[in-house]
């Protein structure tokens, strides 16, 4: 039924392989205090299978950029394509899963019920829903928590459940806006490790917003440094790190060198304000 033809629209079109492609993107918010330019001439190509992190000071437009990809915000200039089609068409085709900063689980649904919510909306069959819920719960190491309510889980577990929810349907793009921002360092390390494994297993394309330099360097194949007023991209760093990354890679010289370059980029962005 419906689900099948949606799947076709979810595969990247033949446009040189870029899954997400932004060209000269501008976005100006009209506020009561006058216009706020959140994005200015932002151009970026994200290839299939990339893990791209966005880093930059508060207010530099990271969230806004991600929301443009998700068709939650309309750019006022330039163009953006997702899977070769417009962001609106990509959203209609359920091309991406979006993980918000807060888990945002429905308190009246169990963990399993929360994960099957998008599946219900997209019209997956009951048995398919069951299989998928079980599979993604396994993936985020929450097997056995299906029948629990959100308030019975810790913050980290809730965030994992919300990631599972974004993974449950066949979207090969994952957009994540500071998903681990509210969690403590140790839980964060653990989830970072899990996220990398998950990415390797599912071969999704991931766009990931963070404030943490080590997190960005540890996770990404590509790090996008942004700076504010107006929000723009100041540096794009391709990571030389191998795909296989144990946590202690963070002490290697290669890692520290990338981290250094990110820090320099952030500092440069700060200085010309």
């Amino acid at each position, binding site marked *: 039924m419906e689900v099948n033809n949606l799947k076709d629209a979810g595969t990247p079109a033949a446009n040189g392989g870029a899954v997400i492609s932004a060209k000269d993107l501008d976005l100006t918010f009209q506020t009561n205090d006058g216009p706020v330019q959140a994005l200015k001439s932002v151009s970026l190509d994200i290839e299939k299978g990339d893990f791209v992190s966005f880093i930059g000071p508060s207010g530099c437009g990271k969230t806004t950029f991600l929301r443009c990809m998700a068709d939650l915000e309309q750019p006022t200039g330039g163009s953006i394509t997702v899977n070769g089609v417009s962001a609106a068409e990509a959203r*209609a085709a359920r091309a991406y899963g979006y993980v*918000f900063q807060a888990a*945002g689980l*429905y308190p009246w649904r169990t963990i399993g019920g929360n994960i099957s919510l998008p599946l219900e*909306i*997209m019209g997956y069959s009951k048995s398919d829903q069951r299989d998928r819920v079980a599979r993604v719960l396994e993936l985020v190491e929450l097997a056995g928590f299906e029948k629990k*309510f959100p308030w019975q889980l810790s913050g980290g577990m809730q965030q994992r459940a919300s990631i599972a929810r974004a993974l449950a349907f066949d979207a090969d793009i994952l957009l994540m806006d500071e998903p681990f921002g509210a969690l403590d360092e140790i839980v964060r390390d653990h989830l970072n490790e899990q996220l990398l494994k998950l990415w390797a297993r599912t071969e999704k394309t991931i766009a990931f917003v963070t404030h943490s330099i080590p997190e960005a360097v540890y996770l990404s194949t590509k790090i996008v440094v942004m700076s504010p007023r107006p929000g723009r991209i100041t540096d794009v760093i391709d990571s030389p790190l191998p795909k296989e990354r144990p946590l202690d890679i963070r002490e290697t010289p290669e890692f520290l060198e990338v981290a250094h370059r990110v820090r320099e980029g952030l500092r440069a962005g700060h200085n010309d304000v």
Partner: protein
Amino acid sequence: MTRSIPVLTVVAAILALWYVAAVPMNAQWAYDRAARADVELTFSDLVADTWSQEKPRLPAPHQVAVEVWQTTVDKKITSKRSLIYHSWITLSATLVGFALGTTLGILLAVGIVYNRVMDMSVMPWVIASQTIPILALAPMIIVVLNAVGVSGLLPKAVISMYLSFFPVAVGMVKGLRSPEVMQLDQMHTWHASASQTFWKLRLPASMPYLFTSLKVAMAASLVGAIVGELPTGAIAGLGARLLAGSYYGQTIQIWSALIMAAALAAVIVSLIGLIQRIVLKRMGMAT
């Protein structure tokens, strides 16, 4: 058990106060009668008299209790003098009015939340409707409906509806708007339709608000039904008992009807509370 101790203390205090108040309230009548019979009243005579008059200004609690007992347990339910019979007349109008009011309130709330024009235009009218004193409006509603041949339960139910739709409408507007922007964005990312967003997000999120306003609406419905019985020529119902009681100075009858109305309100409102607890518990939202 420990929770009932404060409640019982308050009840005991109220009863004591009530007994004390009955003495000065009814003393004049006792003095007058004693003067006519030319006897001297001792204090204990006075107290005994004020607590056992036939038409006291303020009947003593036990007099009301006896009256309630005699008109409920001792009377056949079908009897025109049974309080159960009258309560049922009032309750049926209350429940019909409550159902109508709840439906109207929810429909209005959905309209207000989903339709910009309704959002701008309906709420002021809803609020204005409640500023008209129901005592002035009730007779008009009864007369108008009687003129078009509608009488009996329905006019009273209409008055109940008029009072009860308001808390439901206000509560449900708040409840349907309670989902956070992020939750609505989430629905957007899944490309959910408007009806999916309503059934899967807005409606369940509004449940706690709904139950709170249902309790208020139920109490308002009961008041509406009783008020609706006042101008009907005092045929049946708790309102009719109140009116007949005041015609003939039957204060004990008035008070027993009042007590019955209060008990009825307590029972139906706590019934909603029970349903609320069951539903919210099953939804994992028990508080």
